């Protein structure tokens, strides 16, 4: 209920303040198990991807985010878990006996849709960095779950890392054809990278320096 109300207001704000230009929305999975992977530029990324999903499906959609950031205080942790619906992942964990992706495996086995950002960090706005391999482990364990690439542009302009002032821009959301696990980690990661570079070349974006 709390989550629905929160994301309802997020939806309204996203549509009014930003305005989205979504290509191939029908490729976005709303039923799990499935994995949505997006490039990461801004805190708005999660909000926008969640806003694209129907409110009634939100319970089954889980953004995956860094535990050290989103679960750093009890209040943040409560908000992240109950309102945003986040699954925490330990970055660079010391304890090798615990698999950092355990929470993700469990969610996928429960038939949830995971939303994750394989760049790992928001980094410099509107610049893509190398993709982390975590997603390939998920896909290997759940080969039946489609991996849907989503390329976003403009959110890093609207709210880049380190800024609290939201400046309205129209944002592009390009959704690509899903890829599936084919037995090889490198091949899988290359296919994903390739998909992203194709999506990002679909439009000439206005320069932003």
């Amino acid at each position: 209920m709390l989550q629905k109300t929160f994301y309802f207001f997020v939806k309204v704000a996203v549509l009014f303040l930003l305005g989205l230009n979504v290509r191939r929305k029908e490729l976005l999975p709303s039923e799990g198990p499935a994995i949505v992977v997006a490039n990461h530029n801004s805190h708005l990324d999660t909000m926008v991807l969640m806003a694209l999903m129907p409110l009634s499906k939100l319970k089954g959609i889980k953004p995956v985010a860094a535990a050290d950031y989103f679960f750093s205080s009890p209040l943040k942790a409560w908000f992240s878990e109950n309102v945003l619906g986040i699954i925490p992942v330990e970055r660079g964990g010391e304890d090798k006996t615990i698999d950092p992706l355990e929470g993700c495996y469990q969610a996928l086995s429960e038939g949830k849709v995971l939303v994750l950002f394989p760049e790992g960090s928001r980094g410099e706005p509107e610049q893509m960095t190398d993709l982390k391999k975590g997603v390939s482990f998920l896909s290997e364990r759940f080969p039946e779950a489609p991996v849907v690439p989503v390329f976003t542009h403009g959110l890093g302009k609207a709210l880049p890392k380190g800024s609290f002032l939201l400046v309205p821009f129209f944002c592009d959301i390009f959704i690509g054809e899903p890829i599936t696990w084919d037995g090889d980690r490198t091949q899988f990661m290359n296919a994903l990278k390739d998909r992203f570079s194709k999506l990002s070349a679909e439009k000439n974006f206005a320069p932003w320096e």
Partner: protein
Amino acid sequence: MTLDTIHWALIGIWGLLALASVIVYVISKRSEKNMTELVQRTQSWWVMVAIFTVAFLVSNTISIIVFALISFLALKEFFSMIPTRRADRRVLFWVYLSIPIQYFWVYDSYYGMFAVFIPVYMFLFLPFASLLSQQTDGFLRSVGTLNWGLMLCVFSISHAAFLLIMPATSGNSAGGAGLLLFLIFLTQFNDVAQYTWGKMFGKRKIIPGVSPNKTWEGFLGGVGTTFVLALLVAPLVTPFDMIHAAAAGLLIPVAGFVGDVTVSALKRDLGVKDTGSLIPGHGGIMDRIDSLTFTAPLFFHFTRYFYY
């Protein structure tokens, strides 16, 4: 409730739209070619006319808010389209903030401030706000582009809203609402007329380096049609005598054409086809109001000079 001339004018617009829709329907059934865009365009017209009618009938304040929202969407489109600097995020924010302020002057009928707020105060303030970031690389380009966008999307369009609050005069019971209806209807009708004439009879290109689809036949046909319509409609909703109606009937289609090709030049420079994808079949909101950015201020001052 009695029906004023303004209501009859609105009914006329709905009738015209219904007629146009029937024609488009017949053409799309008969034609072999793909008519999706034309059908989408017509559907979008229904939505736009509906929004406009509701705002118009409810109150002036709602109409002013609708124009402020149009400015906001147009400006957002402009900023998303042009190269911007990260250092100017704060400056962009100030530009956005000028929209409610400018439309407040309209609401407040404060003409003096309305006329100078953007071209004087914002003009002086924006470069100052920009230099605070102390990044001079691209300073000139940034200040120039932001100012132009602000003038086009906010200052120009706000003149349409200011027409609305012009009082009724002895020669014109419809008042500002009638003038606004006259401006919007003729501007948009002229766009459609120039397009239709061009599609049907277009041969000689008028300005191929900017807009390869525009022709002399489309331009002159549109101007002629709009001119005749202006003479017919002016006695109903404006205080104009025949001379002034004729002048307005030329001013609107010619200025509308110039506005249209100006935005075309901008799009060509940026290498985009449409300014956005907000209005199905039309493109972005700037694609729809490009003519209005020129007709609104010119028609406003024309009317104000001769009748107020």
